[in-house]
């Protein structure tokens, strides 16, 4: 059947009439919701969805407001990156096995892509997966892995053939984070805390049934994952903003004001408003079914603005800006941008132009894909990975 708003709404109401979370408990409620196709309506039936249009998810969310949720923070990587990839490339067995506990939050996922030697140039990654019979033996080091210490599973890209050019020798796996040889270490950042981990893989054995997509097709599979990541990063408008916070401080602390800071604040307020309007226009385009190229620019603009705003704030605070709220080395599962002090915001914002695609890479993408400018001469195109300069 073709689902419309009314039909989806009706189904949600019917479900809620029959299921009382207070009675059945949080996890059972979520499992039942999944089984009713009300997890992600655009997924196929039987896999938590109804095969409906993506936009209709909002109808469900409205109805389910106030019911137990699946800890969206903790399962963000599973939801945003692993699930679409498993759906697109997984076997029926893999989809059956992984999607339900992923969505209910029973099994947390993390991502094993970046490596110390492969940042912007992800395709040069060096983690090896060598086939031994029906298993793959994985060795290497991954980095910038958030949530690895909570994760049951990871999505992993590894090199299965070093003899071919870099993009062609990769394969994509689901990595069992409980397997012997997986070691997770917190990675302390310049803010003092550890949002991310390093993950060391030493002789980790993965059955071939955990491979996602064909051998050698890992780059294409990873593109699906990354495209979904970028949508997730660009997409979420937050209610409380950095410019709002700065404006509050400005109004409440007249003694801090100078003409120099005032001019900079006014200019950044304009920038923030222009970015807000650009994002609004982008969402309108998406809603109208005409996604524009503006999306590529939003992360770039956000990083720059956030860095300038937080830099200005530290200066504005003067002597208070010389202090820092807390240097304790501890794990952190989320970026508490507005809860911490100005120094934390300033330092953390430095990552905005690096994580999830550096600003340099984003400018390349805009120049080539949006403006149609020619790419630079490539020196690594037809060279076997093992022969690349390092």
């Amino acid at each position, binding site marked *: 059947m073709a689902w419309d708003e009314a039909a989806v709404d009706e189904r949600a109401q019917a479900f809620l009439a029959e299921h009382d979370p207070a009675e059945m408990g949080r996890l059972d409620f979520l499992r039942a919701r999944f089984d009713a196709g009300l997890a992600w309506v655009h997924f196929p039936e039987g896999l938590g969805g109804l095969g409906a249009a993506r936009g209709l998810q909002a109808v469900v969310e409205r109805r389910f407001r106030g019911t137990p949720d699946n800890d969206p923070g903790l399962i963000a990587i599973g939801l945003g990156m692993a699930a679409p990839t498993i759906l697109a490339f997984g076997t029926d067995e893999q989809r059956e096995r992984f999607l339900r506990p992923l969505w209910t939050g029973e099994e947390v996922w993390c991502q094993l892509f970046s490596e110390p030697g492969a940042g912007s140039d992800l395709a040069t990654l060096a983690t090896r997966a060598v086939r031994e019979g029906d298993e793959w033996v994985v060795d290497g080091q991954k980095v910038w892995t958030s949530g690895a210490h909570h994760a049951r599973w990871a999505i992993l890209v590894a090199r299965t053939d070093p003899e071919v050019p870099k993009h062609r020798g990769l394969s994509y796996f689901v990595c069992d984070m409980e397997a012997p040889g997986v070691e997770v270490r917190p990675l302390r950042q310049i803010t003092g805390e550890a949002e991310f981990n390093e993950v060391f893989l030493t002789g980790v054995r993965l059955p071939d049934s955990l491979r996602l997509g064909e051998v050698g097709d890992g780059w294409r599979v990873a593109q699906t994952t990354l495209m979904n990541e970028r949508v997730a990063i660009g997409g979420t408008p937050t209610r409380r903003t950095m410019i709002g916070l700065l404006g509050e401080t400005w109004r409440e602390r007249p003694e801090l004001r100078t*003409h120099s800071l005032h001019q900079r604040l006014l200019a950044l307020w304009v920038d923030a408003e222009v970015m807000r309007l650009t994002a609004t*226009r982008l969402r309108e385009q998406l809603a109208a079914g005409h996604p524009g190229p503006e999306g590529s620019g939003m992360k770039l603009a956000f990083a720059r603005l956030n860095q300038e705003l937080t830099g200005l704030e530290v200066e504005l605070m003067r002597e208070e800006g010389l202090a820092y709220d807390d240097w304790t080395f501890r794990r952190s599962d989320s970026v508490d941008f507005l809860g911490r002090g100005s120094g934390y915001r300033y330092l953390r914002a430095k990552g905005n132009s690096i994580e999830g695609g550096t600003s340099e890479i984003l*400018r390349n993408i805009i120049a080539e894909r949006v403006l149609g400018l*020619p790419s630079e001469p490539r020196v690594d195109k037809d060279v076997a990975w093992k022969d690349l300069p390092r």
Partner: protein
Amino acid sequence: MSEEAHSPMTLLYTEVEEELRAAVRGLLTDRSAPSVVLAHVESAATTGAVPYDMELWKALGRDIGAAGLLIPEDLGGAGASAREAAVVLEELGRSVAPVPYLSSAVLATRALLGARDEAARELLGRLASGEATAALVVSFAASPHTCARPVVTLGADGTLTGRVTGVIGAEVADVLIVPVAVEGGDPALYAVDAQAARIKTVASLDLTRPIATVSFTGAQARPVGSAAGVADALLLAAGLLASEQLGVAEWCLSTTVAYVRERKQFARPVGSFQAIKHRLADLWLEVVGARAAARNAAALLGAGEDAGVAVAVAQAHCGTVAVHAAEECIQLHGGIGMTWEHPAHLYLKRAKADEIALGTPGDHRDALATLADLPGPVS
């Protein structure tokens, strides 16, 4: 298109707006390519004629109906809103076409719409039909955020005396709309036949929209009502100027992109050099923001809502972006961009003059101190 996209507050272009754009762009492509504008400007400079293209203006104002866009239907206009006028200005910016649209169909028209007297309504009818062209006698450098008292005064005999500098569109106006200081009363709006004034065009930075000094010495004039609409006219024009600036910036960006894709140095397209690519990516992002800001100002002005913040933001951003785009256009064209024969300079001059027009970006940012409650230092 979804319903939302059709609402007057959408930042997208409606179908009606896209149709209007197609008509205007078609006309300008046929009749006002940059090389044509350049030739026109140059011949005007040689013959001493004004650089406006009045044939083009007739086609745009009368035939396409752009002159009467903002005039209500009962006065013979199209009864459209600032949104549509903004689209016209985008296209005019993109072609730096020398027509008195902003001066007559926006500034003078909006001032007259606020005048309300029958004489004003009659004049608006003539403007809507394209029969007459008007100019509002205020300085193009006036900011909508600071309300200056008119400098033209009313004599006891009902004639006008005074001198206004920096006026646009006066050379080709049939009728001048003049804010007049009235002793002991609010300023009033008067209409003066162009022949009754002395109009002296000065050599102007913007070759396609010169400024003039307009002088009255006991000039015959007829009252057309209140001057209350002058402030609204300045705010409207400032908001719509953002769309013109967007058009200027878009031409500069797309012309530059096309050039660096073709131009080769060191056996590579100049546009394949990463430093150039990154600068153009940044510029593109500025232009994308300019479109959102200009659309927002037009939408709020069109909906008759409080547009103060939107206009200030659009002007603060778009004024700077147009200049930046024009400067990058010159720089990335290298030597050829510095020559008179390449049209890039027309856009640089327009962009730089527009930056001053109707309040500088700095003026508009400063206005946000009050409008957005971001007060300055307590001194």
